């Protein structure tokens, strides 16, 4: 087995009495692709917020390999190796596609370190590869604001790939996509498997089936099941959470 990439230990967050995430404990191995499933409000996005620093937890710890990154500032967590893709795709609208990726390729994020011109040939090659991977080579010099929704999602994925974090958090990467676009996204994500540790929040079961290895199911902020697709589909607790104890009748 590989090392443990991400460890959550009793992670919880309280929003004025409402426990959005309740004592979540999980370990994700290096190179693994973990899918987080759950109904709306189950706490999946909140969990991602906690890991990436967007929300501060009220108890519990988050470990990136062996480093405790609990409640660090977002950019420090990002620097430590956590990359996040948002539900509503966010990219740099006024910059061209290529420039977007160049920004992500900055290895040293400090102001003074970047008072230099241009990017190394290696970085540019990397950008070219990523453009290839996400299928936006032709749009490289187009201003990002003019991309379609699907293309914007892929660009954001491209930003993450360029950032090359140890862990990639994907929050509903196929939201708003057509079937064809969803399939293309699954190809991209599958391409990343092994080289990165990926945590995906998703609804679309077709997409999930195409990419999933291990699935964690959340319900009301707690982990209720873990396993592969088959195990999850037949797990009684999952059925109850989704379908009610009487099942479909």
């Amino acid at each position, binding site marked *: 087995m590989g090392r443990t990439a991400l460890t959550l230990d009793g992670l919880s967050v309280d929003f004025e009495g409402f426990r959005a995430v309740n004592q979540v404990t999980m370990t994700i191995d290096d190179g693994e692709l973990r899918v987080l499933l759950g109904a709306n409000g189950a706490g999946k996005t909140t969990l991602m917020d906690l890991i990436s620093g967007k929300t501060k937890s009220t108890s519990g710890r988050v470990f990136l390999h062996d480093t405790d990154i609990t409640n660090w500032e977002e950019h420090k967590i*990002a620097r430590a190796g956590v990359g996040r893709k948002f539900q509503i795709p966010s990219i740099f609208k006024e910059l061209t596609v290529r420039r977007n990726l160049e920004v992500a390729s900055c290895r040293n994020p400090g102001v003074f370190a970047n008072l230099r011109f241009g990017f190394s040939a290696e970085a540019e090659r990397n950008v070219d590869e990523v453009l290839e991977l996400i299928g936006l080579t032709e749009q490289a010099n187009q201003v990002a604001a003019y991309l379609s929704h699907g293309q914007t999602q892929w660009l954001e994925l491209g930003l993450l790939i360029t950032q090359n974090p140890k862990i990639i958090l994907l929050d509903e990467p196929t939201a708003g996509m057509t079937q064809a676009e969803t399939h293309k996204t699954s190809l991209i994500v599958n391409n990343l498997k092994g080289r990165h540790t990926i945590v995906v929040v998703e609804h679309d079961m077709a997409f999930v089936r195409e990419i999933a290895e291990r699935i964690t199911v959340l319900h009301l902020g707690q982990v209720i099941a873990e396993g592969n697709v088959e195990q999850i589909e037949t797990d009684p607790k999952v059925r109850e959470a989704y379908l009610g104890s009487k099942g479909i009748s």
Partner: protein
Amino acid sequence: MPSKRVIDWAVYAAFVIIIMTAPLVMEPFWLNRVAKYLVYGMLGIAVALSWGYAGILNLGQGLFFGAGAYMLAMSLKLASTTSLQQGSDRPVPDFMLWNAEPGSPTELCCINKASFLWLPFQSQWFGVAMGLILPVAIATILGMIVFRKRISGVFVSIITLAVVLLVRLVVIDSQPVTNGFNGLTDLGWFKVGGLEFDPFVVETYYLVAVSLSLVLVGARLLIFTRAGLILQAVRDDQNRARYLGFNVPAYQTFFFAVSAAIAGFAGMLYVVVSEFASPTFMDLTFSITMVVWAAVGGRSSILGACIGAIIINVLSATVSETEGFAEAWKAIIGLIFVLVVLYLPRGIAGLAHDFVDRIVTRRSAPSSHPLRVSDPSSQLAE
């Protein structure tokens, strides 16, 4: 067909050549005036950097302008002959003498409660250094407070507005130290080595023109750096930048401070050219007017904002010569500003950009030069 980058630099070069050769064709009377407008051009650059590139609409840029101005003015005041009226060879500003309590010692250290603050300004270079340091210090402190707290765009602008007004009032109220409403007048000339910069000689014009050129090129290069690119990314989507690992407040504060330094530099040059510093530098109207210049010229264009500022003021001056058209001109500028905000957010530079874009991509008739370099309004910059 030259690339966009080449055209860009060509236009910058053309601009520099124009301002450097202007004295050859201008009447000496205009030299001093145009020098003032070049200073305004520098302010345009400061606004473009802060607003267009960093996304920070500073409605109180006059604060940094005024800070720089007052620092140098204090030194120049002490260097003036009017500060030696009391007989001794150690200077004391005349207004302090006039306002002193009867019986106070006529020494800079102790003529009034705060006059000692003037002591180090006996060195002109201290004033020059402070003219850059003070604006940068204020900007850095302000920036760290405001940007760390992730205060959003509008509120940042409101805070800058309130801060400049606050400082203006404090300066006015501190009569014994700043001469209040009257400001600092009767200043000595700025000296470098044996050279004295009389506001009306051509050397002073060149001082301003060279400074402007350096700032122009410097700002442009700064934007070309990776940091400049990251800054624009921060402007476009702060959060995305944050999650890519960038310390967003650090970038914002840095460029805010650079913008302040440029404004402070402009303030010092203005003092050399106009021989006074006054609280009017910190009027709200002036600060917002700078924004108007940059908006019309092109807020995301360093050269555009610069030229916008210069041209608006040149036109203003020309128009004021004729009858009472000055007021009508103000109304016209107001109207143009409204139209620019509504329909032309990238300003005139944006238009020029699009024009060149169309030509470069169309790769049309090779004989026609895409840009008439002698026409200052068809400039282009990124």
